């Protein structure tokens, strides 16, 4: 066969410049366009289906859940929140929200309801809880909004409470749920965070009984989570192998919200 090809002439400098510019700027424009389209897709992505979590864009919720799995690898009972001397604790403890602790409530009539996995319900009084070994903690309370405050709380370690009331079997499940008596505020916690040695059921603030607006008579203090998980006025505790309802996770926030 005949070879019709002419010997390739080497490109001139100007041709080389033109060619490289064409390729580079072409790729640049295409990638820029793709980035813009990608952003539009993400920004306009539909909200997730309403379930245990809600209110976030579908792909972003997926990312939050995946990120949770990654950072769960770093969770350890040996990783403790930094503690401070009592003198450093705030005298005016910041009060941020009243959801779940509004309306009529008689502290003296209060009882804690614990639902076991067998279906059995146990009712526990505040005196039974106060009879258990007391744990105090002075730590930097962190709100999801971005503020933090050194606070002094006293109560019973949740793990001590669990062991005392025969709930060890329940800790084999993945999640704990807490709810206010009016069921208007509720949090779901992964088990490792719930049984962390610094998680306490608090009945004292600054050495005195917890005031009503801070969740009398018993509230959750969980330093490995943002404030949104530190439920006030605990009405009931439940256990489950799947995520339990969480007020702020239904409003677009990360379910894990771990620190």
């Amino acid at each position, binding site marked *: 066969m005949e070879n019709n090809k002419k010997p390739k002439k080497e490109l001139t400098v100007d041709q080389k410049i033109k060619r490289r510019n064409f390729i580079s700027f072409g790729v640049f424009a295409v990638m820029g366009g793709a980035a813009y389209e990608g952003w539009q897709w993400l920004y306009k992505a539909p909200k997730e289906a309403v379930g245990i979590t809600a209110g976030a864009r579908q792909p972003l919720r997926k990312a*939050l859940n995946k990120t949770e799995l990654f*950072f769960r690898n770093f969770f*350890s009972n040996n990783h403790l929140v930094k503690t401070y001397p009592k003198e450093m604790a705030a005298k005016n403890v910041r009060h941020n929200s009243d959801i779940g602790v509004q309306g009529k409530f008689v502290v003296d009539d209060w009882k804690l309801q614990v639902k076991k996995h067998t279906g059995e319900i146990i009712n526990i009084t505040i005196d039974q809880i106060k009879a258990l070994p007391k744990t105090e903690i002075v730590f930097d309370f962190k709100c999801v909004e971005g503020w933090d405050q050194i606070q002094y709380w006293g109560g019973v370690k949740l793990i001590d409470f669990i062991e005392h009331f025969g709930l060890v079997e329940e800790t084999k499940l993945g999640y704990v749920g807490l709810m206010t008596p009016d069921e208007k505020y509720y949090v779901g916690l992964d088990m490792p965070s719930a049984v962390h040695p610094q998680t306490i059921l608090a009945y004292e603030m600054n050495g005195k009984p917890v005031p009503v607006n801070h969740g009398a008579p018993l509230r959750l203090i969980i330093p490995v989570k943002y404030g949104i998980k530190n439920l006030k006025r605990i009405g009931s505790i439940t256990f489950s192998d799947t995520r339990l309802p969480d007020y702020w996770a239904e409003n*677009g926030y990360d379910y894990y919200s771990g620190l």
Partner: protein
Amino acid sequence: MKVIKEKHSLLMRWTHWVNFPIIAIMIWSGMLIYWASDTYSITLFGHTYFKFFPEEFYKALHIPKRLAEGMAFHFLFMWFFAINGLLYVLYTLISGSWRELVPQRKSFKEAWLVLLHDLHIRKMAPPQNKYNAAQRIAYTAIIIMGFGSLITGLAIYKPVQFNTITWLCGGYHAARIEHFVLTIGYVLFFVIHVVQVVLAGWNNFRSVISGFEVVNEQPKPAIQPAPKEDGE
């Protein structure tokens, strides 16, 4: 004679431009988060000179009441920011191009001369290779700042699990301020960077997309002059 002179590697160009939208999204989503507790201001002797940020600013950018949204975006794009940054740093270290980037001992003195030159106070700029002394300092600083954002970010994000990092940052409260200040730093960097790029002109700008600059070189004489016998 026109000559193509290679300037920026493909990876440098790629990470540079990928970084741009990522940083934009990180700053934007960061503002959505910051709004929820917007406590910072420039206050001296009881007088507040500037509040971060004025109400009109928030309103104009639709910032208010989007904390959850801000966090969701921030905690996705943090991955891209970290990976992209790490890629650039690793490449720069392995390829050896850090030698062109990291400030030399003379850079700190020379950077003043560059500044004076850029401000049209001094006629001559010091001789340079890829980056001048001021660029070496600025571009190395921005990489360190990026690393700082990663560290202070982790310190705020997981202050219990990574309590050593939080401690290194001077605690949770300090880490949040540092994270914020670094972001203000990016914005200032960006403003100066864009002005400098505009002033430097097309050839320079193109090099960050195409990778090369066009320079005029004197053609080498075909016949080398014979060396002198007697020497000098």
